[in-house]
């Protein structure tokens, strides 16, 4: 089952990356223009999120009624429900970083395919950010 799980991860990741490309989310200026509601606003990203959401709301409802996923024993779905300071402060820091350069984690990785320095630096510093969080919260 491990082999199937790994192949499924690679293929769904690939499909996700193609989707980020088609949605033009690997172009950071597309993201910055979406966030620039007072300037050169581009509503496209709302359509990306909308289409992804309609699909996931509908599909997740059906999928989570199954007893178990195909290649694993259980659904590993987050159980936390509380809206606390870490959630809101973390989301704020993430949003500021998103607005500064126009990359969130998925497009940061997919944009590595462009072969320029920006995504490489973004991904490396993001990993440093993960590590800083790890070091400061334990």
């Amino acid at each position: 089952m491990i082999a199937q799980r790994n192949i499924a991860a690679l293929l769904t990741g690939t499909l996700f990356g193609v989707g980020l490309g088609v949605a033009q989310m690997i172009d950071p200026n597309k993201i910055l223009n979406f966030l620039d509601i007072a300037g050169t606003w581009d509503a496209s990203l709302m359509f990306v999120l909308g289409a992804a959401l309609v699909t996931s709301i509908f599909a997740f409802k059906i999928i989570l009624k199954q007893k178990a996923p195909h290649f694993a024993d259980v659904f590993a779905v987050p159980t936390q429900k509380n809206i606390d300071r870490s959630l809101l402060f973390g989301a704020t820091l993430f949003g500021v970083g998103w607005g500064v350069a126009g990359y969130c984690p998925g497009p940061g990785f997919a944009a590595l395919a462009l072969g320029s320095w920006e995504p490489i630096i973004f991904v490396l510093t993001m990993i440093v950010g993960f590590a800083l969080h790890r070091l400061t919260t334990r």
Partner: protein
Amino acid sequence: MNNFTPWTALMGGLIIGISASLLLWLNGRIAGISGIANGAIWATTVDDRAWRILFVAGLVVGGFIYLALFPGAIQARSGYPLWLVGAAGLLVGFGTALGSGCTSGHGVCGLGRLSLRSLAATLTFLAAGIITVYVMRHVLAVNL
């Protein structure tokens, strides 16, 4: 309105939604990129690390496939200060780890599960992103 591309946006969103649904259906996992990538670093078993690295590698492969299918459709940005990109990376890494998710985990999958926690996170990072771009472009007049 600037470079509005509703059709490719809908198509890209549909593909992203299908991918996230397949990952949940097949592997029982949430397609939250920050969580998957962060978990790949600190995973305690080989199996747990393997699928995470493969999913992230797939994102890059997907980027290559898109660029091969549509050559020149997206150009790499040039001239943007790289130190700003690095500062953004730090904030995104620390922030998504602290806030347990990013655009995909909270925005697509969390809202897909109708989670109020993810709704709060999504509204927060959207607001923070909008305010940041406003300050950068219209107050500090950083036009890059």
